[in-house]
């Protein structure tokens, strides 16, 4: 289709870089206890605010330095990858179930049912997500399960929109009609005929939504209403580091870079899958 030139720039390289980066983060998360120089919770107050190795006075004992409480930052980053990946995966699982149920039901039945479901989607889109999430976590108490429930209950809109339009396109196809003709019920048709056919579109959404959920968790934790201390959430590390922004900028720069790279890699993969899917369907 496309003729040569600049093939080496982002679009084609994106997928490879994205997959590689996600792989690195996954390995860090899986083998955090083996890779981490020390326990992420252990405090050594004598060495608090040790600078990273690339600055004067840094040492390889703590390559990324120490935070204000004398905890090793590299260890916290490695364990933090677990929290980010877990939040991304669990939130997206919750939101995928909600969104896909609403979307496929709307697209399959159409008419009044679709009107109600579309209204629900519109209501959700009109909500200021960050404020609602913050307020809910603040009112009901911040904890890992609470953050996952709140974000999962809020971030289903894209799943619903995509599932709805993809189901609508399938609705009049022969194999759906055939399944109806042999007397299959709606839940069965949605599960066995519709779902497998919209799966590739949903996987694209899921990839991008994992990134979205990770960013949202970091935002909530940064504002103090997400994962609670002393868990090594990257957003929480940013929030703790912000107090010493002027004297110890690496406290903010390092977890931010980790967050950026993970979200970037998920987006790169998501975009590449999206493009691949668009080319296949047109």
């Amino acid at each position: 289709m496309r003729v040569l030139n600049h093939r080496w720039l982002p679009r084609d390289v994106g997928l490879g870089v994205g997959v590689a980066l996600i792989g690195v983060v996954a390995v860090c998360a899986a083998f955090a206890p083996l890779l981490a120089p020390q326990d992420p919770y252990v405090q050594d107050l004598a060495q608090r605010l040790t600078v990273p190795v690339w600055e004067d006075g840094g040492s390889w004992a703590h390559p990324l330095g120490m935070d204000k409480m004398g905890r090793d930052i590299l260890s916290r980053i490695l364990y933090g990858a677990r929290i980010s990946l877990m939040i991304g995966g669990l939130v997206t699982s919750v939101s995928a179930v909600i969104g896909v149920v609403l979307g496929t039901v709307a697209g399959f039945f159409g008419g009044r049912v679709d009107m109600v479901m579309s209204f629900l989607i519109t209501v959700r889109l009109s909500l200021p997500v960050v404020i609602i999430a913050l307020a809910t976590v603040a009112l009901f108490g911040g904890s890992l399960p609470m953050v996952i429930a709140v974000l999962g209950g809020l971030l289903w809109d894209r799943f619903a929109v995509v599932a709805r339009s993809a189901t609508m396109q399938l609705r009049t196809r022969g194999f759906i009609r055939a399944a109806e003709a042999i007397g299959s019920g709606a839940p069965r048709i949605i599960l066995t005929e519709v779902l497998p056919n919209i799966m590739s579109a949903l996987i694209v959404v899921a990839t991008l939504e994992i990134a979205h959920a990770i960013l949202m968790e970091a935002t909530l934790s940064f504002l103090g209403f997400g994962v609670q201390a002393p868990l090594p959430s990257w957003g929480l590390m940013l929030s703790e580091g912000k107090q010493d922004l002027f004297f110890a900028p690496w406290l903010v720069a390092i977890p931010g870079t980790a967050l950026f790279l993970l979200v970037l890699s998920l987006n790169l993969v998501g975009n590449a899958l999206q493009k691949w899917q668009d080319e296949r369907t047109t």
Partner: protein
Amino acid sequence: MLRYAARRLLVTVLVVLAVSFLTFFLTQLAIDPAAALAGAESTAADIELIRRQHGLDQPVLTRYLAWVVTVLRGDLGMSLHYRQPAADLIAARLPVTALLATMAMALALAVAVPLGVAAALRPDSLVDRLALGLAVLGQALPTFWVGLMLIIAFGVKLGWMPISGSDTLANFVMPSVSLALFCLPALLRLTRAGMIDVLGAEYIRAAKARGLFPGRILFKHALRNAVMPLVSVAAVQFGYLLGGSIVTEQIFAMHGVGFLAWQAILVGDTAIIQAIVLLMTFIYAWLTFLADVLNAFFNPRIRLG
């Protein structure tokens, strides 16, 4: 046209009502307003008295309807923390948020539209790849981290910009840049995709065949049609900016609505939280309504379809 607008208007009103019920119900569920009013050192009998005095023993639906009536009168309730009407507090903070959102949106559009057009004119060229790179970057950079990095670079190291407050226009520069980067990707991609679509259309080929100036074709024929979808997305994004600048306002200590919301959440001031959620939903719903009607006005296929 009128029928389409009327239908959209009905949906908009219903959406605002649904959100108002949701916020009212959730806050009532989370915090007992009678206990909150009575204070920490009150007895169960005191709370019961206050509950009856304020009509809080009525069913939720009755109280909700009463609340809607007062809201329609412009009374958004009293802030327990500031001991001032929530409406006054919000009104005082709104200009900062509005200015911030406007500056960020203007900046994002000023970059996205020219860059998107340039990218569409030569797909897969170096400019196109750079535009795509910028979009991917903007999508992945956490807004609050960009804000902090700007503070380190331009506020602390170089000392060019003030790092907190909202008193002078200079205070708005760094926050707008970090917010602009947040809404840039969608606008950029949309401009590019819209332009590529339009440039391949028959009427552009016809215009070229008639020997019109390329510049005239680009601006008069192509861009006009390509920016139509941009209107809706820009409206949606603007709504997000008004409601979502909470993080940016907090980082730069700007005294806007987002900062107020964060402070209200910190002290559990439900009147303010309720009022802000309602206001943001209201603004967002109206912006999308206006964008939809505007789009339908320019594009008959939408209102007839």
